[in-house]
């Protein structure tokens, strides 16, 4: 029994690994709440609408159980809110509020509202903490309100009103973005939104007043169920109204028909055929599409039944990708905002609570299309470093070499001294051949770009 490093705060139980599977131990202290969750009909309701992860009760040899052990449906790939685009975080927030509202109908309430309770499964957000439910305490305020505002509302409002890059503050503020920080970063006009004024500005003000001064309250806080329901409705209306309209990012329009500067349409079609062919040859089951942009090639892989993590550092491109996935109900792709030059590190207690991206499940195949020049020339990484990175990530590699005279490379070199005399196809093949066997290569028609299929030696 290997307790998962992040699972230590909740006395109701904890998550552990056993024979490569995730289980959850439930302690006796949670018995009454668990029984109400299961017997009241709340569990069935939430699972039937796809809001809560289903589980089964098990007994494991070699594991001392407390009250019960449950095996939840396994999440193939864990992701964190600081890796999600705006729409993913918004959907996760609305899910939590929907669950809280339904829970109240069954006389239960969420006792926490951290974004770590939500994961993505088959393209949709799902609540994974089955022990988050407690009996509703009549006339008491919602214990998770502060956490909800700091984990969900503050970052969403910062993205729409300040800058989408503020979402990364969730990485350095593992307990949610403090409201006083959000207040300092938000522009003046954010105050004119009555919801934001109430739940961020006024909320932050009262938080700081009461943290410094204990003498202002004289009676127990009273909060009716009606007020709680309206609080949830209020938060829901606020979040539903939030919209992020990024200015056209370069990458968001990269593959749009008629607007593509890098490929003739025949080249693009040929590239799609080659990638599809190589994906079949690798027998890929789990793919990382690095520099995936809006997920054009991730979709090709997904249609072949391959599970794909579609990564790009451009949040606008991932936003578009996620919206398209929602529209087509594409369950095989999880898009994430990841900067390969500075990917998600391990963070939290002992730098062990939330895994770095490379400590999570590795793919059997990596797709690195139109990426090499950004790493080598855009970021001064020698071929040896790049090859080593790919070989540590996966056994199979489908990679596109972009020659120096390509328009996109010339764009990167604009205004810069060309110190990249080593950047050519021969050196690329030489360095990569130290770690990979080049199984196939083909030049894209009407282009000088080459697609390679490589296998780790």
């Amino acid at each position: 029994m290997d307790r998962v490093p992040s699972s230590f705060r909740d006395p109701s139980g904890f998550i552990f690994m056993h024979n490569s599977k995730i289980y959850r131990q439930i302690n006796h202290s949670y018995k009454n709440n668990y029984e109400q969750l299961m017997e009241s009909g709340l569990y069935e309701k939430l699972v039937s609408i796809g809001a809560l992860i289903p589980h089964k009760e098990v007994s494991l040899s070699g594991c001392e159980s407390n009250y019960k052990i449950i095996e939840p449906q396994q999440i193939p790939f864990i992701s964190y809110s600081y890796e999600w685009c705006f729409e993913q975080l918004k959907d996760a927030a609305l899910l939590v509020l929907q669950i809280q509202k339904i829970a109240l109908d069954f006389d239960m309430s969420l006792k926490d509202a951290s974004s770590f309770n939500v994961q993505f499964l088959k393209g949709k957000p799902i609540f994974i903490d089955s022990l988050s439910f407690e009996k509703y305490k009549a006339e008491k305020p919602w214990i998770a309100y502060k956490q909800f505002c700091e984990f969900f509302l503050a970052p969403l409002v910062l993205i729409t009103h300040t800058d989408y890059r503020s979402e990364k503050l969730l990485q350095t503020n593992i307990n949610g973005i403090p409201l006083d920080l959000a207040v300092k970063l938000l522009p003046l006009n954010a105050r004119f939104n009555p919801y934001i004024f109430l739940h961020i500005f006024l909320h932050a003000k009262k938080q700081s007043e009461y943290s410094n001064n204990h003498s202002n309250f004289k009676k127990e806080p009273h909060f009716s169920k009606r007020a709680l329901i309206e609080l949830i409705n209020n938060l829901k209306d606020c979040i539903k109204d939030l919209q992020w309209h990024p200015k056209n990012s370069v990458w968001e329009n990269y593959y749009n028909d008629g607007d593509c500067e890098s490929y003739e349409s025949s080249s693009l079609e040929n590239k799609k055929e080659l990638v599809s062919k190589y994906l079949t040859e690798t027998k890929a089951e789990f793919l990382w599409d690095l520099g995936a942009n809006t997920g054009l090639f991730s979709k090709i892989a997904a249609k072949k039944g391959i599970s794909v993590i579609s990564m790009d550092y451009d949040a606008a491109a991932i936003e578009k990708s996620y919206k398209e996935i929602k529209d087509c109900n594409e369950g095989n792709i999880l898009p994430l905002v990841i900067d390969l030059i500075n990917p998600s590190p391990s963070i939290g207690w002992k730098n062990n609570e939330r895994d770095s991206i490379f400590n999570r499940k590795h793919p059997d195949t990596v797709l690195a299309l139109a990426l090499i020049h950004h790493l080598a020339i855009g970021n001064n990484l020698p071929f040896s470093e790049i090859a080593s990175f790919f070989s540590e990530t996966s056994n199979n590699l489908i990679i596109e070499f972009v020659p120096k005279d390509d328009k996109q490379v010339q764009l990167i070199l604009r205004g810069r001294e060309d110190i990249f005399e080593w950047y050519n196809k021969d050196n690329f093949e030489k360095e990569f051949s130290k770690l990979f066997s080049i199984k196939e290569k083909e030049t894209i028609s009407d282009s000088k770009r080459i697609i390679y299929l490589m296998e780790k030696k």
Partner: protein
Amino acid sequence: MNTKRKLELLTYISIPLILFSEQAYAYIDPGVGSYIFQAMIAGVLSSLFFFRNIKDSTVNFFKKIKKIKKA
């Protein structure tokens, strides 16, 4: 120590006890400020509930009229 002071001290001690003793299994810090803030805005939220009901009733009333007119 006078009676008023004794009552004040009792309040300072009992509020945290009340807040925390019933939440043995609710392990997160709700934030005293956030807790009290909700109680402060309870009246505003309840009146929003009241106005929302009026709005929903009015909208439903006009929807019914529209249906009758169409029929």
